């Protein structure tokens, strides 16, 4: 919200100084006007071209998912010669690439990780923000130091451990780590919770509520929107995650959507190419819906992260 205001304000001052300029150096007025118009034309042209370049792959994905395998791989056509729905039908009904199983697996990971992980993260954030914890700074830095360790440095021992427990090719290696919370979520929620007055909790404590009750009955309802925002980010992250799932999941019935998509792509003799594209379309739709409906929030949180970072 604040951002939006700043944006307008800044825009206003720019135009203001602009007119000021044209007044003070009126001799150059026509020259300047000409330059401004040219700049505007160039700006729109470049911006529109860029937008077309970036959005086009999505359209291309959609168009080409209606082509036959031969048409997509052997020749070049812009629009499908003949619109076929076989690719989608094959994905929905075929057994080679069980897309509904993949969807189910993805949702299973999303739901279990997000419900438990969010609860755990919020609880830790509550402790950091509102309780008297000794060595608070140490523990926070301790947790945050994990953010600079790349997953590549952790995957081999983790894989070996999950293998020893016969958990490879199950969803457990992807679900279990999520149960222990998410550091960036903890960090974000701490900052949000600090803004909530202590008086709420003191009053409840006097009435005999314990810390856990305070957290559940007072804090959680107050930070609903902040949690929702973080959950959306996490949801998108898990949905698009490819690296770890592709390491662990090897049989097609166990795969998440992204890993199955990777399989569709890897298996391409040209026959599967439009099917892979159809799969890409299907897996993108939920993210597009979420992104478009929450776009303001996505862009604003990104902008804030950069200004603060």
């Amino acid at each position, binding site marked *: 919200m604040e*951002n939006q205001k*700043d*944006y307008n304000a800044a*825009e206003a*001052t720019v135009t203001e100084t602009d007119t000021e*300029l044209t007044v003070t150096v009126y001799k150059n007025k026509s020259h300047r006007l000409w330059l401004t118009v040219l*700049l*505007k034309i*160039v*700006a*729109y042209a470049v*911006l529109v071209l*860029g937008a077309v370049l*970036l959005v086009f792959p999505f359209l*291309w994905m959609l168009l080409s998912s209606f082509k036959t395998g031969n048409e*997509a791989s052997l020749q070049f056509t812009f629009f499908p010669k003949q619109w076929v729905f076989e690719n989608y039908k094959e994905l929905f009904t075929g057994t080679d690439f069980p897309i509904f199983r993949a969807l189910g697996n993805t949702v299973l990971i999303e739901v279990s990780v997000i419900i438990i992980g969010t609860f*755990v993260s919020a*609880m830790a954030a*509550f*402790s950091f923000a509102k309780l*008297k*914890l000794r060595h608070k*700074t140490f*523990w926070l*830095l301790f*947790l945050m130091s*994990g953010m*600079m*360790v*790349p997953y*590549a*440095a*952790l995957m*081999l*021992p*983790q894989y*070996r451990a999950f293998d020893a427990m016969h958990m490879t090719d199950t969803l457990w290696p992807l679900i279990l*780590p999520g149960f*222990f*919370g998410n550091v960036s979520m903890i960090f974000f929620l701490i900052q949000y919770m600090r803004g909530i007055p*202590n008086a709420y909790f003191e009053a409840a404590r006097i009435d005999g509520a*314990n*810390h856990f009750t305070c*957290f559940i009955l007072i804090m959680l309802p107050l930070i609903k929107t902040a949690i929702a925002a973080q959950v959306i980010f996490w949801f998108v992250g898990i949905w*698009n995650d*490819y690296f770890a799932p592709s390491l662990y999941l090897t049989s097609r019935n166990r795969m998440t959507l992204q890993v199955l*998509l*990777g399989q569709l*792509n*890897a298996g391409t003799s040209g026959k599967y190419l439009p099917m892979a594209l159809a799969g890409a379309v299907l*897996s993108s739709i939920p*993210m*597009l819906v*979420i*992104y*478009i409906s929450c776009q303001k929030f996505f*862009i604003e949180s990104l*902008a804030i992260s*950069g*200004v603060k970072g």
Partner: protein
Amino acid sequence: MENTVNAATAESELSVPPQAPPKKKPRSRVEKRENLVAFLFILPPVVGFLIFTAISMGCTFVFSFQNYYVRRGTSEFVGFTHYVSLFSGMFKAGELGNAFIKSVGNTIFLLLSLPVSIIFGLVVAGLLRLGDVKGGKIFQILYYLPAVSSAVALNIVWRYIFQSNGLLNHMFGTGTPWLSDDMLLKVAIVLKNSLNATGGAMILLLAGMLNVSKELYEASSLDGAGKFKQFFAITLPMLTPVIFYLLITGLIGGLQSYADSQVFAKGDSGAATIVYFIWQQRTNGAAGYGIASSASVFLSVCIMIITLVQFKVSNKWVYEE
């Protein structure tokens, strides 16, 4: 980051005294109890960190000095052998060392998309401001679209665009072998990644531009500076923190790239990155596991150094208020 944390905790401690009882007692039973409860609340993330980060990291370190016999499940200590063989490819042609050096080279080449995307982002954001373009929000939404989309889906469609009879070759009437030539393959990845990362860079740079104090512009326009001069003399220097942030986060992410090698290049050695090398080596005989581990240690040391440099340097040469 460190500073924010310290400052923030200091702040919260400052806000405590008014509510605290006037007499300072030694730690009461109530306080001890609260401390215990507070610790229990943060216990799950702490345990998770210990298991999934600290212990895992330690194991990787230990494994990097070992040979691992998968069938027998035993290990033997081999000292720095794996580290030596990783880097031996630089001096003499050993097949394995070569593969690693090549993967380092590939990873660094692919990082080219980073400066390119920042320049793209700067151009787009600059034009949006200079041209006083209406509907900036819509452009931001469209440009950021690839960043929230799945890397796999994007790689599939971009591969289709780059294939020998694909859209790109058709449009320009060329027969460029984008996907089968080692160098062109990397160029293709850099091109698509630069485009896809433009939106993020643009949004951050725009936010940075709006943060520049308006007085600077007013003062300079009184001195007769035009829009272009203002852009290069004021806006650009003031954007160094954002550019630095983009570089560091991009560097850390880029060093860990995997999907490009696996999905876009389909495992072609011409675009195999360090992480791809690590995952491939893992099953390559008794030494493979140790070699993969030592490459992981190398990678994480690089990333930790970059992160620490960020903390140090960002205060020095980057303009910050």
